[in-house]
């Protein structure tokens, strides 16, 4: 039975956004980030959750047509209402999580050894 908001679509989209923004983030960390985003989206206040749900379905549908990776390249950095907020939400959560969990990480997501 499909869930709403659609966790699968959100996870897929988040995965691609994080992979696009932080290409050198190790896959296991990326999975952790995507799971965190899923938890936060599930806990959103109801009106925001519905909004994200609707946008994620639209974006998910578009992703089926043109390929999610290509779509992410297309929508990131563009001021599309709704979609822009969605991207911004996913992005904010991922950056906050990555550097909260692993402070010494390069801007590309590559883990850094802290030199003392």
């Amino acid at each position, binding site marked *: 039975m499909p869930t709403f908001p659609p966790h699968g679509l959100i996870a897929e989209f988040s995965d691609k956004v994080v992979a696009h*923004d932080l290409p050198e983030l190790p896959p296991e960390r990326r999975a952790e980030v995507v799971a965190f985003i899923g*938890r*936060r989206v599930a*806990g*959103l*206040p*109801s*009106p*925001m959750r*519905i*909004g994200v749900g609707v946008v994620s379905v639209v974006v998910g549908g578009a992703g089926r047509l043109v390929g999610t990776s290509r779509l992410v390249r297309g929508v990131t*950095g563009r*001021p599309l209402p709704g979609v822009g*907020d969605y991207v911004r*939400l996913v*992005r*904010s*959560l991922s*950056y*906050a*999580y*990555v*550097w*909260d*969990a692993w*402070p*010494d*990480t*390069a*801007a*590309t997501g590559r883990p*850094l050894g802290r030199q003392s």
Partner: protein
Amino acid sequence: MTAGALDAEVLVIGSGAGGAPTAAVLAEAGFDVLVLEEGPMVRQGDVVPFSLEQMDRQYRSGGVTAALGFPAIAYTEGCCAGGGTEVNSGLYRRPPENVLARWRRDHGLVDFDFDDLYAICDEIELELSVQTVPGELTAASDALRRGADRLGWANDEIPRWMIYPHGASATDGRRRSMTETYLPRATAAGGRLMTGYRVDRLVLDGRRATRALGRDPDGRAITVDFAHVVVCGGAIQTPALLQRSGLRRHVGTTLAVHPTVKLAARFAEEINVADDVAVHQVSEFAPDLSFGGSASGPGLAALALSDSWSRFGPAIEDWRRLTVYYAAISSEGRGTVRAVRGLRDPLVTYRLTRRDRAMLGRGLARLALLTLEAGATEVYPSYRGAPVVRRRADLATLQGTFALARASVMTVHLCSTVPIGEGPTAPTDSHGLVRGTSNVRVNDASLLPDAPGVNPQGSVMALAVRNARHFVDTIKRAS
């Protein structure tokens, strides 16, 4: 009676800066008080301040909440025993006298004596041991002071509800939050505090509310019968609860906030303190505009850089030399809180005026100038397409490219959704009694007639104590 049936003489909904003092005053006056708190009890020291874990446990929706609009304004609400006092920076400001005068004049407030209010502030400051930092300031706070001093801009250290062990430094304080002060006082006087209990709505019989309907921690329905109810859920939850209870008149239509924009500043020396914030604020342009320090741990520093990540991102590798500052404005705009049938949470919107937008842009530029004067080597304003500011000439680029629609706007000060007043549009009287009811009161940030231009929780607590005492007097006189 079922297991889910509770009762109390006075039901207090919410345990934050409004609910906790209310509960303490009423319990100590001999009332049978039950406090229901939706969030959990988390002791000071159990979580790292300003961490994601704290947001998970003590913030509503993990801190991911927003007032919709163009642009949306992200906000946060505490959702735990003690509410916002547990998780914020603990900076305490008395309500300024000109603000009190404005409130009294513009809203026809009665029995609103400044000396009485300031006497209450004295008590609160003692109870919460409001004080300045002993010893050395954090580097981020000192940088703010230094930059302001060089520009000749008024600034001061804001005291906090903190106690410091002997010989401690700025970051060793322990919050004198509600779980350490008014809530223990309430329970010591016989009040009951139950956490994890959410109240959805009140049942009214004519002008009288008789019962609250809600959920226990396991999601089972509960009822609470009471003689009086005081709603203290904060400026978002309180109006939503009233609206769901059928009390809609002028409720939730005047949300006021202090919108803020921010920047990350990079210094030559290590400046980042993950678990504390700067205690200085710049008041030169108050109340229109004020500057201060934000929580700046690496996660939040990354967030501040995220709008222009392709250019700003590499700075995160040097996060120990980064700290985040904000510029806050007194906004002319207003917002709404609307309970939507069938939805658990209300729809929140906020509309910024043209002047608000311009003020935020100018504020960000003035803040950037201040950080340059403080010695920042690079400044990263939080909006898409922002320049890296290294010299004064770059400030012209900042002001030329700034557009609020591309900025990350947020706020932590929410108020004024159920304001006190004697005018025809005031949803409560001068003491928070909801019009059209005989026993429903509000006693939290919702009551402030507008945003005070300074950290509002001092004002919230002072009003809460005042109103709670008035309630005691009213009931005692009647009986």
